[in-house]
């Protein structure tokens, strides 16, 4: 019901006072709570399509591009390439027919910004796309949405139909002589299809694999037409830049990165969800002010930004200003804006392994460095996490990473090594402990830990004994309990349900002897 702030326990009824929202700058998301995404009337009544009207009545295509360039809008899909420059390239490319495309193939683990934007305000994205098409001189548009986002597919399809019925799409839009049509393409859900050339292959109905980009897709894209591909959030930024001007847009954010960015803030923090903040906000403000700090009084360890292409950022960079260039400097990247916060219980080697395994599944297998590199990396990482790490593993990982980073065909392979390299750069001692001591300092790698019941704390209540799914806990009503490590599958249920905090994980410490052996049953161990 009413919102109760987790940190202070205060009840806050009004939206604007809730800390999670208070410190955000919601330029793109603010209308989401007021607009019915299935109603063009709602969008128009909130000032919708007035940017399109402004463009068609008083701005030449060249002037629109100039304005976008001046605003310094950079691609929100991750690369951060200047949008205006991209538009200009497609505009100047030779071709009778040109395309503009919305990239909504969002697939980073933990990221859902584009989804919410296109589900909640599809007309905003569409308006940006129409303006872009006018500026570039495109007559065809596509919205590439992944099939796993059924509501996004539904809402953008309805929006397109409504815009057609109202005459905002189709022939001679608003009597300006400008013709433009948009179609929705449902992606089959391959992560690599978010890459520009792979996406265009998929649009053509072929297997979504990237091609070498000696010639950019902006010049030769879908069906060899010059094609301008931008992320959902990039398109959604266009109407407000047109209405309020490039100067206004530049006044938000940092020198190199203007405007706001939506992040999906998830992981071990109190307030999870989508946050829209001006570029240049510090990680500390994001995590502690908006996110409400780490859950359960634990200690912050790292934040993973940019999904499988990004990197881990350690505590010493908490005051880093989040924008495209600053993230690059510390070995991460903006990505599409996934932000996973990790606490002291997260193992950085295991987390790197998770991303490598994700990419191994998603690699299209066309180029060898990515296909084979990821396979070998996954094998080495599994060995390290399972206690088979050897001297020289780190060197081998670094060699493979360097090769992959340089010679992979597309950004998937090139950036796949970022999670590993940043984990190695900032948490090397953890890697060394895994390899040399076969221990996991965060006690997260299952094969390197054991569960142990402290006989001094155990109250012999039999709760864990009854709940253990494999019957690995021995003891009885008057006898402290003990875990049979041969049977234990390390599921952690016993630790979760113990009311006395008697069960803990140990890694590399000698396993205490079975207190039952050679001892008479006792009521409980005396302190």
């Amino acid at each position, binding site marked *: 019901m009413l919102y109760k702030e987790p940190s202070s326990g205060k009840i806050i009824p009004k939206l604007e006072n809730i800390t999670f929202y208070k410190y955000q700058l919601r330029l793109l998301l603010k209308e989401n709570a007021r607009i019915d*995404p299935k109603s063009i009337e709602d969008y128009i*009544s909130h000032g919708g399509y007035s940017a399109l009207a402004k463009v*068609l009545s008083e701005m030449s295509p060249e002037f629109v591009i100039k304005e976008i360039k001046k605003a310094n809008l950079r691609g929100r899909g991750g690369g951060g390439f200047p949008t205006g420059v991209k538009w200009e390239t497609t505009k100047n490319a030779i071709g009778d027919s040109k395309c503009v495309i919305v990239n909504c193939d969002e697939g980073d683990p933990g990221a*859902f910004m584009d989804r*919410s934007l296109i*589900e909640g305000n599809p007309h905003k994205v569409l308006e940006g796309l129409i303006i872009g098409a006018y500026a570039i001189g495109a007559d065809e548009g596509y919205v590439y949405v992944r099939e796993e986002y059924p*509501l996004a597919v539904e809402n953008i399809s309805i929006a397109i139909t409504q815009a057609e019925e109202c005459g905002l799409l189709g022939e001679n839009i608003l009597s300006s002589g400008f013709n433009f049509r948009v179609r929705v393409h449902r992606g089959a859900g391959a992560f690599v299809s978010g890459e520009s050339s792979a996406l265009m292959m998929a649009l053509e109905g072929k297997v979504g694999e990237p091609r070498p980009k000696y010639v950019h897709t902006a010049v030769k894209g879908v069906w060899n037409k010059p094609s301008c591909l931008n992320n959902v959030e990039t398109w959604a930024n266009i109407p407000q830049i047109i209405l309020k001007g490039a100067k206004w847009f530049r006044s938000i954010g940092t020198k190199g990165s203007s405007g706001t960015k939506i992040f999906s803030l998830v992981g071990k923090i109190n307030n*999870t969800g*989508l946050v829209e903040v001006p570029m240049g906000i510090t990680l500390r403000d994001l995590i502690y002010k908006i996110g409400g700090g780490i859950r359960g009084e634990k200690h912050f360890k790292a934040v993973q930004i940019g999904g499988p292409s990004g990197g881990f950022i350690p505590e010493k960079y908490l005051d880093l200003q989040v924008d495209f260039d600053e993230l690059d400097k510390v070995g991460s990247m903006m990505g599409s804006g996934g932000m996973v916060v990790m606490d002291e219980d997260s193992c950085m080697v295991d987390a790197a392994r998770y991303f490598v395994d994700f990419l191994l599944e998603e690699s299209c297998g066309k180029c060898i460095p990515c296909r084979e590199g990821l396979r070998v990396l996954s094998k080495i990482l599994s060995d390290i996490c399972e206690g088979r790490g050897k001297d020289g593993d780190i060197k081998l990982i670094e060699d493979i990473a360097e090769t992959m980073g340089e010679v992979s065909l597309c950004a998937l392979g090139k950036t796949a090594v970022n999670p590993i390299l940043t984990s190695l750069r900032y948490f090397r001692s953890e890697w060394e402990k895994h390899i040399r001591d076969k221990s996991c300092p965060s006690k997260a790698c299952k094969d390197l830990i054991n569960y142990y019941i402290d006989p001094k704390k155990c109250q012999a209540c039999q709760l864990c004994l009854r709940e253990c799914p494999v019957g690995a806990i021995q003891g009885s009503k008057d006898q402290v309990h003990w875990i049979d490590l041969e049977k234990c599958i390390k599921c952690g249920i016993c630790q979760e349900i113990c009311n006395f905090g008697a069960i803990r994980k140990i890694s590399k410490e000698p396993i205490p002897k079975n207190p039952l052996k050679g001892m008479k049953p006792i009521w409980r161990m005396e302190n």
Partner: protein
Amino acid sequence: MLSIKRIISIEDLEETRQEIRVGRNPNKPIISVCMGTGCIALGARKVVGAFKVELEKEGLKEDIEIKETGCLGSCELGPRVIIYPDEICYFKVKPEDIPEIISKIVIKRRVVERVRT
């Protein structure tokens, strides 16, 4: 079906906008229920259904508008309801809360002081 006609020029767009705005009462209470994927998964459809039933029962269908909107971002706390014009937020709303919300807040413009953890 669209309530607006085909827009053929820029002046026409502005006219349509004014028409829509004039037809709407800014003081009419709006119950905005998030229908993003997260809130739907947590039961937002049932909440909307319960609001409709309750408004019908109280004979308030014409006086209060239910709006199914997009996502505000706090998906973990869904289903999310905001009552305008006072902008009072409710999270983790269940169908059984609806009669109380309607009778107390929307009609008397008071706040239901309950917290669900």
